[in-house]
């Protein structure tokens, strides 16, 4: 580890490793810092991704894939089952390996990587000019022209730069997940369970990982977890629905389902991935978005270094390109999230009935959302904007 780099990236999740990779590829000297002992562990994620999006940011390696997914199955509060075949292929990944190899790919491009390196603050003169890190128990200062905050849900990098990044209780999903054996559900579909008893202000998922293994987890809105935490909801669901499962791992986690952050760059600073609230507020999915944003951010950081101009004005190209790619859509998804949030169990049953009345080939994502918003048809325009 040197004392100075062009670019320092905080956090080695998909966002961090991908920004490090593209910044290094553009010729910058890059250091990627991860607080944990190992990259990829623990996995706080259901590991589902769409092939189409992932392909745009990385060459997919077969051994990253645990299970190919051909569709989704929705379970209504009363137990109605709506099957939807997807045109797009999905995967349930093995993020332990995926995250690790993304960091490896960044290193292949020349990035330095350090684990057990917990960033504690920013160095600042007129602008951000480096980080303070606890590396293997010793405090070090590392100078940098650009700092990229890719420090996930627990991000503090933005706050240290003066950006308000904390989220409202309404906009956080508090999650618990088990990876378990013997789940008696179709294993090439992702399953979603809805209902106030199951997961208020959120949903429960079952994402199969092959050979009878699956990620079973749920997220509930922070507004509902005051009296009963996510883990209790999950325990209750498991004991009533899958009493015979063997739980191999339990994790907790959080997902921001918030409006897009207004500020994601400052002089010498960029935020990417969960740190920039780039998850989809309806699904909570954030892997591909994080990587799409990180590819842009890494490239812009590399170019800015070459041009010797790391001003906010120069770096603003990143949010502009991101907005055109996915960012603007997230604003619309947030509107849809607010609508879905208010749906009662009765509304959900009616939506299930509408979908069950449709022939299989009509059950597309657009039609699913259209059926959900029958009470507010003005939202149909928004649905068309994000799905077509």
């Amino acid at each position, binding site marked *: 580890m040197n004392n100075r780099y062009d670019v320092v990236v905080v956090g080695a999740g998909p966002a961090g490793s991908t920004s490090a990779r593209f910044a290094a590829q553009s010729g910058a000297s890059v250091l990627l810092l991860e607080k944990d002992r190992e990259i990829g562990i623990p996995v706080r994620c259901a590991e589902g991704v769409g092939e189409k999006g992932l392909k745009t940011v990385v060459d997919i390696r077969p051994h990253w894939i645990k299970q190919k997914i051909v569709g989704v199955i929705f379970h209504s509060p009363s137990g109605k089952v709506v099957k939807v075949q997807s045109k797009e292929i999905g995967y349930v990944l093995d993020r332990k390996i995926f995250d690790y190899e993304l960091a490896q790919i960044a290193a292949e491009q020349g990035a330095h990587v350090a684990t057990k390196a917990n960033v*504690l603050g920013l160095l600042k003169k007129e602008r951000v000019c480096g980080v303070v890190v606890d590396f293997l128990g010793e405090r070090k200062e590392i100078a940098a022209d650009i700092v990229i905050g890719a420090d996930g849900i627990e991000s503090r990098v933005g706050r240290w730069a003066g950006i308000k990044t904390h989220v409202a209780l309404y906009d*956080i999903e*508090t999650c618990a997940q088990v990876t378990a054996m013997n789940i008696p559900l179709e294993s090439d579909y992702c399953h979603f369970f809805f209902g106030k008893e199951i997961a208020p202000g959120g949903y429960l998922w079952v994402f199969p990982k092959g050979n009878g293994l699956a990620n079973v987890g749920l997220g509930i809105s*922070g507004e509902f977890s005051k009296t009963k935490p996510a883990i209790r909801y999950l325990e209750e669901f498991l004991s009533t629905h899958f009493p015979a499962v063997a739980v191999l791992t339990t994790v907790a986690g*959080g997902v921001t389902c918030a409006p897009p952050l207004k500020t994601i760059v400052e002089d010498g600073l960029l935020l990417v991935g969960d740190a920039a609230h780039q998850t989809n507020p309806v699904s909570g999915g954030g892997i591909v978005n994080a990587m799409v944003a990180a590819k842009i951010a890494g490239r812009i950081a590399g170019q800015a270094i070459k041009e010797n101009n790391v001003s906010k004005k120069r770096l603003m190209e990143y949010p502009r390109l991101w907005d055109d790619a996915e960012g603007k859509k997230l604003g619309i998804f947030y509107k849809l999230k607010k609508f879905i949030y208010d749906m009662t169990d009765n509304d959900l049953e009616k939506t299930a009935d509408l979908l069950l009345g449709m022939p299989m080939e009509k059950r597309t994502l657009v039609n699913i959302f259209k059926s959900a918003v029958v009470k507010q048809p003005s939202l149909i325009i928004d649905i068309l904007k994000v799905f077509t």
Partner: protein
Amino acid sequence: MEKGKGMIRYIRKKCDFCGTCVAVCPHDAIELAENDLLILERCTVCKKCVYVCPLQALEVDDE
């Protein structure tokens, strides 16, 4: 800033160090390490962290 009663305490054996509490803290008063969590002095005991913890690993100690 109005300060609530008591102090926030985290229960090490329950905590999974997932950082959900950090995301909702309005005062940047929680410091996370791989296997450690520190409540900083600037905490105002607003309890948002207590409410969102997926494992109920945070509580208010009001002695």
